[in-house]
C-alpha cells in the first residue's frame, strides 16, 4: 500500500512537471507577449526594458527554471488586463468553482449510483427504462444547450430559480445540473454494467446458496465489487467537473474560474490562462491521486500489489 501510494506520488509530480513544461512552451510559441503588452507607440527602449523584465533575454532553460521557481510558490505574474496578481484573482474565484463542482459531483453520485443499482437489480423495470433514457440523454445533449434549456424552463418560464449569477442560495442548482449531467449519466451506466457483472458472478451464486438475504447480496457483496470500476472513472470525472466548469459557468455567468478562463481567453490574457491551466492541473491531478488511493483501499488486489 505504501509502495503504491509512493509510486502514485512520483507519477503525480512528473505529471505536474510535464504540464508546466507544456504550458511554458505553448505560451512561448503562441505569440510574443511583448507585442501584446506594448502599444503601437512603444520605443525600442521600452521593448528592451520589457524583455529584461520578463526575463526573455535569458536562455530558454533559465527562463523555464525561473518560471518553475515562481510556479512553486504559485506566482504566475500579473494579469495582462487588470495588472493584478493572477494567483490572487484565481484564489478569489476558487470557492465559487469548488462549490459548483462539488454540487455537480454530489448530484451525479446521488442520482447516478442509485439509478445504476436500481436498473441493474430490477432489470427491464421502469427504473431500468428511466436509467436508459438518462444514459442516452446524458451522452447526447450538449451541456451548453442543456444549460440554456434548463434556464429557459426553470428560471424564465417557471421562475423557480434565478437565471444566472451567484446571489441567492438556490442559484447553484441549474449550473450544477448542467455541469454534472454527463457525469451522472456516465456513473449510472458504469454502475449498472458493473453491478450486472458482479450480480452474475460465482461469488454471488455462492452467497445466494448460503442463504444470504437479497439486500445484503446487493448492497454488500455485489456493490463493494461493482463500485470499483466506476470509482476510477469518477477520478477522471472529478477532473472534468473542474475543467467542464468553463461551459457551465459561461452559460450561467457563474463567477468561478471557468468564467475567468473564458474571459481570459477572449482577452488574450496569457498570464491568467497560464495560471488557470496550472491550477486546473493541480486540482485534476490531486483528485485523481485521492481517488486512486481510495480505489486501492477498496480493492485488496491492488492494496497488496
Amino acid at each position, binding site marked *: 500500500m505504501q509502495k503504491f501510494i509512493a509510486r502514485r506520488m512520483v507519477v503525480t509530480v512528473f505529471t505536474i512537471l510535464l504540464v508546466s513544461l507544456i504550458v511554458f512552451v505553448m505560451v512561448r510559441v503562441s505569440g510574443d507577449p511583448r507585442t501584446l503588452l506594448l502599444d503601437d507607440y512603444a520605443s525600442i527602449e521600452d521593448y528592451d526594458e520589457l524583455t529584461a523584465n520578463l526575463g526573455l533575454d535569458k536562455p530558454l532553460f533559465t527562463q523555464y527554471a525561473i518560471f518553475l521557481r515562481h510556479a512553486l510558490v504559485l506566482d504566475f505574474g500579473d494579469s495582462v488586463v487588470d495588472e493584478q496578481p493572477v494567483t490572487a484573482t484565481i484564489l478569489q474565484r476558487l470557492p465559487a468553482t469548488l462549490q459548483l463542482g462539488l454540487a455537480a459531483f454530489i448530484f451525479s453520485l446521488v442520482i447516478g449510483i442509485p439509478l445504476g443499482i436500481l436498473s441493474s437489480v430490477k432489470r427491464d423495470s421502469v427504473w431500468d427504462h428511466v436509467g436508459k433514457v438518462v444514459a442516452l440523454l446524458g451522452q447526447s445533449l450538449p451541456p451548453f444547450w442543456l444549460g440554456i434549456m434548463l434556464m429557459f424552463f426553470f428560471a424564465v418560464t417557471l421562475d423557480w430559480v434565478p437565471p444566472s449569477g451567484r446571489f441567492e442560495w438556490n442559484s447553484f442548482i441549474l449550473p450544477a445540473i448542467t455541469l454534472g449531467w454527463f457525469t451522472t449519466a456516465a456513473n449510472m451506466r458504469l454502475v449498472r454494467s458493473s453491478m450486472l457483472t458482479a450480480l452474475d458472478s460465482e461469488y454471488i451464486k455462492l*452467497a445466494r446458496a448460503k442463504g444470504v438475504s437479497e439486500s445484503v447480496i446487493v448492497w454488500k457483496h455485489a456493490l463493494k465489487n461493482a463500485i470499483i470500476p466506476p470509482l476510477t472513472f469518477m477520478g477522471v470525472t472529478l477532473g472534468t467537473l473542474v475543467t467542464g466548469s468553463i461551459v457551465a459557468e459561461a452559460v450561467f455567468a457563474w463567477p468561478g474560474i471557468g468564467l475567468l478562463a473564458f474571459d481570459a481567453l477572449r482577452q488574450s490574457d496569457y498570464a491568467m490562462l497560464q495560471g488557470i491551466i496550472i491550477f486546473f492541473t493541480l486540482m485534476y491531478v490531486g483528485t485523481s491521486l485521492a481517488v486512486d488511493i481510495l480505489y486501492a483501499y477498496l480493492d485488496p488486489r491492488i492494496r497488496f500489489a
Partner: protein
Amino acid sequence: MNQPLLSVEDLHVRFRTPLGDVHAIRGISFSIERGQIMGLVGETGCGKSMTGRSILRLVPQPGEITRGRILFEGRDLMPLSEDEMHKIRGERIAMIYQDPAAALNPVFSIGQQIFMVMEQHQANSDVDTRQRVIQLLEDVGLPEPMTLYNAYPHELSGGMQQRAMIAMALSSDPSLLIADEPTTALDVTIQAQILDLLITLQRSRGISILLITHNLGIVAETCQRVVVLYAGRIAEQGDVGDIFHRPHHPYTKGLLAALPNPGSRGNALNVIPGRVPSGLDLPPGCTFAPRCEYVMDHCSQHQPGLFTVSPSHEAACFLHEEVGGKKP
C-alpha cells in the same frame, strides 16, 4: 429411522429459451442416505449441476423446476417460501463450486466472508463467531488460520481457496453438502487432498455429500453410491460395486472404458463417439440410442424406464429386459 436424508422424486427442469424449451432434467429420482457420499456422474451438459442446484431451488433464469418433489429431512422443499428456503440454504444444505477463485468474493477477506455468512444465520457474539471461523479454517486443514483469517482470496492457492470454501460451507453445520466438480479446477495432487478432506468430513461429522463430477475415477475413490446421468435422465444407479463391476447400461460401460487404465499400457482413451443431444430436440425413444453400440430397433421409438437389476441397482436400458430382467 430408515428415511433417507434427501429424496428427489420425479424432478423436471425446463429452460424457456428463444429457440424453444430445453428440457434439461426429465424426471429423475434418487435418494441419499445419512452419512453417505453419493456420486452424480455424466458428461458435460447432461444436467448434473442443474440437479444440484434444483435441490437448493436455485435453478438460474430462464430455467424452472416444472415438476417433482425434493424431500429433505422429511419435508418437501418445493412448497417452501423463499424465506424458509434461505434458512435451508444457510443452515441445512451447503454447496461448493468448481472454481473457488471465482466463488470467493475478491473484496472481502476469507475470515470476513465466512463471518458474514455466519452472522446471517446465527446470533452469537462477534468474538464467538470469529473464534468459530478460525476453528473452521483449522478443521479444513488450513495452516495458520489466524493469519488466513485476514488474507484475501487472491493470496491463496487454488487448493487453499477450495478449503476456505469448504470451511464456509461447514459454517452452519449442514447435514448435506453438494459439491459441484469441487476438484476440477485443481491439479491432481491437490485434487486427492480435497477428496480426502471430504471423506474425513463425512466420517467425522456424519455429513452426507452429493459429489458431482464427470470423472468416474473420483467416484470410485470417494463414493458409496452412484447415479449416472445422461441427457437429463438417470441411465443407471447403484452402489459403487454395482456400477464399477456390474455395469448394465452401455453408457456406463462407455464411461468406464473411457477411464485411463494403468493396466493397459499405451492404449488411447476410449471415448464414446458422438455427443450428448441438446435438450432442445431430443431424439424419440432412448436418448442414448444414436451413440449406442448395442442399439436395437425399438430403442429409437421407445424410451426405456428404469429396470431393477438388483435391490441396490437400476438401469434404464432395453438390453436388460432382453436378457430377462423383470419389468418395472
